[in-house]
């Protein structure tokens, strides 16, 4: 019977190859402390953290339709929670990193209930207001330096691991690990039942609702997961920066504007987009940042050109109409030919 050949599968030849290749790349990157210089390791660590931030924002905006311009609230929260737990509570940095995402989720739950009452542009502004509230609150915590900010003492950094090599390698592995964890979390979430619901919401919220998807709960779960993981990324970012202050921790430029830039040029609503966008952003930064204002103008021009000429981002261009996927997410019918 001819139709026995017909079956549904997610994998394509390309996705099998790319998944294998990505596995190899991650393994090679995990060994970076032995083959790369200290500066490269630091750069790879930063790239990993931005991939994580961008993937999380993409999950929120690209899939759940929650266009937040206030994700710096959780990056900053992560920084402050990490400094608070290590400096005030005297916890080991690793323990603090494990607790940080939980605190992020606990804080995000009431925030979500509050801001989910807003729609569209009002929601975006609401998230910004929340992050400003967080910033002003942090400025009142005098135990953590108030508006002045506070530095992480060398002793806390040294408590991370014995010796400089291990310390820097561990900080890097944590960053790389978070990037892999976040990408994997997004990947498996999208392949799950909830992910199908999410993609339905992304394509048409009203249609999704009429199919019986509980939109509020789905968005709520995504918001909490994103907030928790963003808090973890924030903690790692400020472990690298060594210093936290309200303006730096809740900087909408560094933790939201650049992240939106990355996702938009990479391709919003795809897993590949944020990764490609991050690589493009860092390629631009590493080559142009010394030019001062011109660098920021260049970033702006790239964003405008992409938005006008390729609204679906660089990955959208590569994917084209063929629907290429490096990560096997969507189902395809096989055996038709």
């Amino acid at each position: 019977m001819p139709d026995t050949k017909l079956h549904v599968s997610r994998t394509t030849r390309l996705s099998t190859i790319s998944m294998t290749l990505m596995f190899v790349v991650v393994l090679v990157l995990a060994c970076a402390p032995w083959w790369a210089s200290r500066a490269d390791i630091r750069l790879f660590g930063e790239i990993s953290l931005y991939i994580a931030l961008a993937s999380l924002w993409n999950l929120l905006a690209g899939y759940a339709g929650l266009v937040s311009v206030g994700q710096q609230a959780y990056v900053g929260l992560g920084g402050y929670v990490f400094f608070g737990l290590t400096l005030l509570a005297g916890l080991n940095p690793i323990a603090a990193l494990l607790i940080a995402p939980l605190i992020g989720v606990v804080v995000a739950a009431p925030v979500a209930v509050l801001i989910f009452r807003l729609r569209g542009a009002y929601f975006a502004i609401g998230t910004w207001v929340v992050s400003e509230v967080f910033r002003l609150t942090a400025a009142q915590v005098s135990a953590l330096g108030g508006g002045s900010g506070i530095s992480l003492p060398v002793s806390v950094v040294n408590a991370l691991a014995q010796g400089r090599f291990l310390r820097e390698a561990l900080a890097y592995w944590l960053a790389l690990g978070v990037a892999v964890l976040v990408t994997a979390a997004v990947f498996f979430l999208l392949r799950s039942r909830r992910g199908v619901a999410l993609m339905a919401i992304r394509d048409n919220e009203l249609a999704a609702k009429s199919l019986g998807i509980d939109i509020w709960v789905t968005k709520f779960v995504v918001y909490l997961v994103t907030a928790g993981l963003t808090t973890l990324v924030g903690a790692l970012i400020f472990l690298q920066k060594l210093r936290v202050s309200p303006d730096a921790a809740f900087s909408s430029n560094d933790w939201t504007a650049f992240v939106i830039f990355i996702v938009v040029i990479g391709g919003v609503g795809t897993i590949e987009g944020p990764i490609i966008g991050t690589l493009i952003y860092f390629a631009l930064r590493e080559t142009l940042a010394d030019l001062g204002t011109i660098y920021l103008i260049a970033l702006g021009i790239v964003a405008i050109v992409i938005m006008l000429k390729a609204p679906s981002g660089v990955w959208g261009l590569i994917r084209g109409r063929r629907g290429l996927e490096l990560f096997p997410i969507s189902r395809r019918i096989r055996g038709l030919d």
Partner: protein
Amino acid sequence: MKTILTSRRSFMVGATALLAAPAILTRTRAYAATPKLKVGHVSPRTGPLAGFAEADDYILSAISKRFAEGIENNGKRWQVEIISKDSQSNPNRAAEVASELILKEEVDIIVAASTPDTVNPVSDQAEVNQVPCVTTDCPWQPYFFGRGGKPDKGFESTYHFFWGLEDVIAAFLAMWDGAGTGKSVAGLFPNDADGNAWGDPALGLPKPLAAAGYTLTDPGRYQPMSDDFTNQINAFKKAGCEIVTGNMIPPDFGTFWSQAAQQGFKPKIVTIGKALLFPSVIKGLGTRGIGLSSEVWWSPSHPFKSSLTGISSADLAGGYTKETGRPWTQPIGFKHALFEVVANVVSRTQDLEDHPAIVKAIAETDMKTIVGPVNWSKGPVKNVSKTPLVAGQWQKEGDGVALKIVTNKPAPEIPVTGQLQLLG
């Protein structure tokens, strides 16, 4: 099918190249035949703090010319290269470029200047990576206590020279003394690194002001970039304040000062730290800028000269005006002095290949710079050396305004160039 294959392959090649590019690009540190020392420099070239770094090009080109000739160390000439990075007035970026200078450029000494937002993150990165670091242009309390410094322990690799709050207080008090105003002082302190340090009840202005017989009205920390100072102005009016002091950023002072006029608050003396340093700010205030007073860390009339090029304060400031057509600003002298210290340290270090030896040479510094003596053994706390501070007033001169030094009691070697005039 074939086209898919090629595009995927070329994409993979591209992606791999993109991933690998930084690894290849950074491995280019060449070791020249003549020994070369790398100095990293971080300053806020762009962004809201750019005024502090506007003379960077002028200072750095003169210094680089001098450094190109080489600095003598143990009978050998060392070339000194300066690698300058922009912090974009952003502490996150300052930390990032500092670590880039340390890890990628492998600089032997790192220097930074202008406000805690630049100086502190750079120093923190240097301390963790044990790279010798010299900074300036930030009062020492926000630098030292803002980084969690303990006076008896101090820091290992990071050193700072500038004045402190006690000097500002002394200079302000000397200026107000005998001006014939009431002793009720209004305090304006923002909730930021400088404001918290200046307003601190134990280490800031309140205690010494009380000791000198002044009563301070402090309505509490305001959030930077506030657009309403009505509460503060009412409190000051109620307390009958005739003197206003504090530490503000220029936009906040502009807001406060115009609202004070609207609401009929007319103090006789207005002495504000940080906000009133730059001629451009005073010009922006129009006629209401004349008569405002500020701390003076450096001026063309400071009787010091460069230990590196021999240039006098007047010539350094005059050269800047001649080259750019802009009036001199106070950070010019300190930016020059920062590199004087570097040159001095390079010439005295036992072994320039050894970072602890460079740190030791910094600690043993005893020299006279264009901003005054620098000597870390005489500091108020470890790792801090103090430079002299006086106070001045913006007065009308010809068509423009000029900063006149109106008191030199804390540092008599600096000549007075004008007399304090009360606001109308």
